[in-house]
């Protein structure tokens, strides 16, 4: 039978921002089946919490944008609600082997590399200070290269004015998620909607 709750659900629960030690102790001895088929009480609440963490990982792995920093590193902004930075960084590292993925915000950062030694991970201080160390390490040859401008043009090209539906957009790409990934282009709902307006804005 297909389960919506994974067997390692406990690992996800621990990353929830409202997971208390008491709840963790209770969940530690529960089986995935107990959580999946719960009809109420704490088990159903654990199911909702696990789903919330997994959803954040799934959404943020798509919404985070990376800027290449030289040939060996890429960085992006991430400030998740739950403690999922490590998971998102690993998913992205597996997508781009041999590239150090650095995700972070003003307080914390997560680094991950997927290469010949498998997955190597570490955590660090604020993103800005990690990038400063990176600049020192790579020298002045490397500079950040973002494709944000290209993305903005493409993103605008996909918009259908006659089907404008901001409530649905906000439901799918919530304010919290957009803030977590620092999605500037997508958040600009009143911005230029045509190429002409886009170009004139630049001028």
């Amino acid at each position, binding site marked *: 039978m297909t389960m919506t709750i994974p067997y390692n659900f406990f690992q996800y629960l621990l990353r929830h921002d409202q997971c208390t030690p008491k709840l963790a102790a209770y969940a530690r001895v529960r089986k995935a089946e107990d959580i999946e088929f719960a009809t109420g009480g704490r088990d159903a609440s654990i199911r909702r919490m696990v789903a919330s963490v997994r959803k954040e990982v799934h959404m943020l792995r798509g919404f985070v944008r990376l800027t290449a920093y030289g040939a060996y590193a890429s960085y992006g902004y991430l400030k998740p609600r739950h403690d999922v930075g490590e998971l998102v960084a690993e998913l992205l590292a*597996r997508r781009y082997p041999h590239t150090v993925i650095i995700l972070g915000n003003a307080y914390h950062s997560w*680094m991950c590399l997927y290469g010949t030694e498998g997955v190597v991970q570490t955590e660090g201080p604020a993103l800005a200070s990690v990038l400063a160390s990176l600049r020192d390490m790579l020298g002045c040859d490397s500079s950040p290269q973002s494709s944000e401008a*290209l993305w903005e*043009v493409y*993103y605008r*090209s996909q*918009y259908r*004015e006659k089907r404008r539906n901001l409530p649905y957009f906000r439901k799918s790409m919530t304010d919290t998620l957009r803030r977590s990934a620092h999605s500037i*282009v997508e958040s600009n709902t009143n911005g230029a909607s045509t190429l002409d307006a886009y170009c004139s804005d630049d001028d």
Partner: protein
Amino acid sequence: MERMIALARQGRFDSEGPAPSVRPDIEKVYALGEATKHDICVSTASPRSVSGIDRIGNVCAGGICHAYAHDGRCVSMFKTLYTNACTHECAYCSNASCSSGGAVYSYTPHELASLFMDLYRGNYVEGLFLSSGVGADEYETMASMVETAEMLRTAYRFQGYVHLKILPGADRDHIRRAMSVSDRVSVNIEVPSSSRLSEICATKDFKTDILRRQRYIQRFVSKEGAPAGQTTQLVVGGAGETDVEIFKATVREYHKFGLKRVYYSAFTPVPGTILESQCMQPAWREHRLYQMDWLYRIYHYSSCELMSAFDCSDHLANTDPKRAIAQASGLSPVDPNIASYDELLRVPGIGPVSARRILAARTRGSIRSRKELAAMGVVMCRASPYLSLGGWHDSLLARWMA
């Protein structure tokens, strides 16, 4: 971090591909991207497994969305035309030779592959969706499209998601090559029948240009071919077709050609085309057809059962078709403690996940309250009139008012 950079340097392989010759022309990116905005294909799910460290990109069984447009649609792929030049005369299309369209643009395989990889490396898109006008002729354009995909797979070592459109009348050999490098291929049938096609396009032949290509694809899929199979798309209401016609065409596509998905795009008049003065079709029509499609594929309703959702004018009403079918068939209240999986699935408000949870919960004890059902994911406001718990159920009036 120093160790990480050192490791990254050691294991680095060349995935940069040929150096980009020119900076991307943003007007071209916009024009060729905009021309695909009515092409629907949001799923990037692929069963193909990707492993190893000598490649870039991967695929995911669940599919990932990288953004949502302000019309609420998921933007997961770099969806673009290879060229917007076209010799066909589709009355709804701005690229048609009979339309008063704008400038003509075209990519080169190298340019397009390099552009796509820039977006992919920035994690803006999940894959490439490459469609095209037929250009000077479909043979040459299809060859260039396939060359783009081949370049991504070889020069850039890209192992992510690629969806290629097969142009009407494309060469059989090109179809085979396209399928060897893509996850999914599709031929847009646009309309449900040959007679409807003749109303909106005089230059395409439904049987030879479209259905025959779908047959080729089906044969290649069964031998080796694209892991995510083939799909198609229908324009809803462009040629005045009814919902019954569209639904019957959908069932035919699933049965005859083994399609994975059928997509629907409600007709929107495009300025400069022959159909620019025709009424725009409401978005709910597209939505209701997707619900019917879902009932057919996921809930395994038979096509005969689904026919009761249509009204006497062969259209769907703007209501939940599952509830309409339950009302039309006089579905009597079912007891979740004894109902089978199929019976539970017929109840509005119960889906496959909640039906499975109900079955599992029964093995641990009987279900006594509606609150328990709600905790299992049942949408009680919809399901309540069709459920009987401990012999109690809502009155007939409540069922009809639901």
